[in-house]
């Protein structure tokens, strides 16, 4: 799984979450459901937070696009001195996935469980993968 695929996967996770929650909220509203998913504050908050994170990522990707296409590599073949071109995806993409995992984890396992190491480790792995992919892409080392 390369950087492009990982970023796409994380953003798709965000879009999938927004679609599922949006459908559930609007289904309850349209049908006057007695059990309304929007009565759960955390789920409603996850819905709006995911939309915000994906929106922020969209804004960042648009503004960074120009810098990416303007990136030049010197004739002697040296690599760029800054990894700024790769700053486009990770923060918001990780933010989306982290938020979704966190709320989902709390809903199933609760807040006081000792199983919390699972979530923090998983998020740590995602962050580590991102950093490694950026470094390897920057240095031109095959994945």
């Amino acid at each position: 799984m390369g950087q492009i695929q990982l970023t796409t996967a994380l953003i798709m996770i965000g879009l999938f979450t927004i679609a599922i929650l949006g459908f559930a909220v609007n289904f309850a509203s349209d049908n006057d459901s007695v059990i309304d998913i929007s009565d759960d504050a955390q789920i409603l908050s996850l819905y709006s937070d995911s939309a915000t994170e994906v929106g922020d990522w969209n804004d960042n990707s648009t503004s960074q696009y120009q810098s990416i296409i303007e990136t030049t590599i010197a004739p002697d073949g040296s690599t760029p001195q800054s990894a700024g071109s790769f700053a486009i995806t990770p923060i918001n993409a990780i933010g989306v996935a982290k938020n979704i995992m966190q709320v989902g984890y709390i809903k199933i396992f609760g807040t006081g469980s000792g199983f919390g190491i699972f979530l923090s480790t998983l998020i740590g792995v995602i962050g580590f993968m991102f950093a490694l992919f950026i470094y390897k892409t920057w240095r031109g080392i095959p994945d």
Partner: protein
Amino acid sequence: MSLYELPNATSSLDNMLVQAIAASPSFTPLLLVFAFFVVFLGGSGRQLARNGTADYSMWSVIASLSIFMISLIMSTITGIIRLDWLVIVVVVTIFSGVWFFLDRKPSEI
């Protein structure tokens, strides 16, 4: 003396369901678990038999979406599903999506 109280069948079918769930609250979650595994094991099992390999994460998403739709329909009537169960179904659906999107091969972006 009857072994169990028969539900009142003169009102409506959904009322029978509500009465059955009032008598046995675990009916709803077990029904959803049953529906999930019918789709998940049935789909992945047949795909495995036909192709020699199965896309488990995809079948997990399909099974989750199935129980998600069933839960939403259940949520329109009082007494069939509780909010916490609906939330768990939504979370399971989202986690299936997480598994699905992180499980793709490089050729399946």
